[in-house]
């Protein structure tokens, strides 16, 4: 049994969530920068792509490990459609980014909860009591 498979989708989801938090943090930091365009990516789409089309390196030994998934591909990094574009060309809507950030944080904690559940399940199985 492989620990990578034991945790299922959750480690990847957790990584993507933290990357999304990073993107939104960048948007919030640039809330007053003239000409800055708010960015984001479609979490569902990127996760699906990583599961289906991810590059799996051929392993010839049990101890070989799969490479880390890199940054979000440039084609998936999209720009937000502004609801109220401002005169200086900035498209960051602080309220929208705040809600996106906190929703993402809650989903991160949910992923973390799933992982914790998996770990305690595995631990129970290992101890056998």
């Amino acid at each position: 049994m492989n620990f990578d498979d034991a945790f299922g989708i959750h480690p990847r989801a957790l990584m993507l969530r933290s990357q999304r938090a990073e993107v939104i943090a960048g948007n919030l930091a640039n809330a007053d920068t003239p000409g800055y365009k708010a960015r984001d990516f479609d979490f569902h789409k990127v996760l699906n792509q990583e599961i289906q089309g991810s590059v799996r390196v051929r392993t010839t030994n049990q101890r070989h490990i799969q490479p880390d998934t890199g940054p979000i591909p440039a084609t998936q990094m999209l720009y937000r459609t502004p609801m109220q574009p401002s005169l200086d060309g900035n498209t960051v809507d602080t309220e929208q980014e705040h809600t996106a950030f906190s929703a993402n944080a809650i989903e991160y904690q949910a992923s973390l909860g799933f992982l914790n559940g998996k770990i305690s399940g595995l631990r129970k199985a290992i101890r056998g009591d």
Partner: protein
Amino acid sequence: MSMFKIFDTAATGMSAQSLRLNLVASNMANGDTVSSSLDQTYRARQPVFRAMLDQANADAPAIGVKMAGVVESQSPLIKEFSPDHPLADEEGYIFRPNVNMVEEMANMMSASRSYQSNVEVASAAKQLLLATLRMGQ
């Protein structure tokens, strides 16, 4: 772990906003600084922010912010006829800075709100990171 980059990004936001607050304080403190010539008079200063695109590749998810420079307001100075003023020039005029107090107050509120939102982002990231460190315990 990419979560650590959030702290850097939020920190750039905080330092940019605190510089902006600094400029607001400077403008308000000098709001009544009169002088006897046009070129010696204080002019309102405003920051110019720029995204840190040059330090990272274009695909980097987190982009910080930095202060690209400070510009002086081009609006006209206030020329006031006051011959009794000790700083009055030969014709009896003094010059007041072009600081608009109402504008500065609004600027101050906007800067402090932006600062707060960066602090909130950093503290949320800290909580998530601490929860991650406790994973499996």
